[in-house]
């Protein structure tokens, strides 16, 4: 479902340049509870990198994809360490645990899709949730915490397709002839933080126009920096009582 979400975001970009998309507001009051180390399980990210041809036909590039996945993963680890959080990678599982992890990842993609659809496109807002942000994987997600050894889960998904030379030419022609617009490529990403005790999505960030060329180290740094910008921080360690963690 992640790829379908990203495909829809990409489709959106292709049609409406610079569309004013609503900023998704996850629970902005969420902070990590004070005094406890924050252990975040980073799930294997959904990463797709390829090229985009003239007819908007996408060609996957496995080398780019593998490289991007490695760089983005390393960058997430660095980013979180710098933030003072403990980050662990969800290890490869076998048997029943592998199925549980896969099932929750599949569910997460669907939830992420619903969040993006209903919170990003003003016209697709759900009236009963217009002012709310309460999506969840359910309390059963605590199992993931046991399997992976953490209290939170971080999901990251990126989709990039770089315009080929042919496409760049078409872009120029098209722009010249009709004053129209063909975006150069697809560059969308999202990231989400899940509180594994409740399964609630406590933080969500989606960007259909992500920066940074993920095939490069600098680009991966820029991409993750943008994506995890305004990532929840720990409550301040101070004399006054810590703010209550969000429900």
């Amino acid at each position, binding site marked *: *479902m992640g790829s*379908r*979400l990203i*495909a*829809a*975001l990409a*489709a*959106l970009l292709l*049609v*409406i340049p610079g*569309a004013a998309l609503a900023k998704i507001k996850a629970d902005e009051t969420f902070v990590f509870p004070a005094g406890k180390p924050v252990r975040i399980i980073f799930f294997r990210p959904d990463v797709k990198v390829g090229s985009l041809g003239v007819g908007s036909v996408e060609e996957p590039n496995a080398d780019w994809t593998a490289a991007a996945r490695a760089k983005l993963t390393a960058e997430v680890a660095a980013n979180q360490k710098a933030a003072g959080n403990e980050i662990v990678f969800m290890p490869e599982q076998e048997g029943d645990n592998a199925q549980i992890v*896969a*099932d*929750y990842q*599949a*569910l997460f993609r*669907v*939830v992420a*899709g*619903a*969040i993006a*659809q*209903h919170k990003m*496109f*003003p*016209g*697709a*807002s*759900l*009236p*009963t*949730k217009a002012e709310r942000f309460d*999506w*969840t*994987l*359910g*309390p*059963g997600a605590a199992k993931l915490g046991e399997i992976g050894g953490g209290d939170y889960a971080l999901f990251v998904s990126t989709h990039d397709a770089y315009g080929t030379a042919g496409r760049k030419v078409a872009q120029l022609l098209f722009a010249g002839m009709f004053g129209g617009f063909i975006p150069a490529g697809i560059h969308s990403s999202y990231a989400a933080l899940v509180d594994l005790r409740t*399964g609630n999505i406590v933080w969500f960030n989606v960007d259909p126009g992500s920066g940074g060329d993920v095939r490069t180290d600098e680009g991966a740094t820029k991409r993750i920096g943008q994506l995890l910008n305004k990532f929840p921080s720990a409550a301040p360690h101070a004399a006054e009582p810590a703010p209550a963690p969000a429900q």
Partner: protein
Amino acid sequence: MRKVAMLAAALALVAAPAGAYKLVAHGARVAVAKSEMTIDPPIDWNRQQSRPGRNAEAWTLDGIPLNEVTFYGGIEGGKALFKEVDKKNKPLPVFKSTMLTPDVVQLFEASYRIAGGSSLFEVGAVEPAEFAGHKGFRFRYAFTLEGEEVKRLGEGAGAVVGGKLWLITYEAPAIHYFDHNLADYRALVASARIPGPQVTVE
């Protein structure tokens, strides 16, 4: 039902942004599925403006792929449950007014297998049950759609009255979602009214 196609249709939503989902306020009886079936929801729901079929309508709380209640209002003989996916190569089966419950359940299953592009569909218990004051049925099912790996559970309730099929189904991922709002769905079913003489059910 068209969960998997939903995001691909995001494009369409942008093209016609207003009213993609409308509020169905609690405490007011409303007609559904462009039919004479009416429902009185105890809680607020969101109605999807683009309908899955001519006489079908979908409601959701958190998003169609997360919880979906579909109303089928008086499907007539010769008609399919929802819009064709590929009429030329994979036509949907049609309802026949002489169908008995097992035939209806099979019609539902076959429709999902074809439209959902997946053979992963199982029917569980099938029981007689009152529906909108008529002798009807209730059944459970489980399925996985093409292109996804989310296992979903479903419950359906309905009746064939006056040669037409009236049906309300509820589907949600097996993890958390199905159980979470099952009672809300059953409350909608309990409130359903359809035309026709009310029959007392023993």
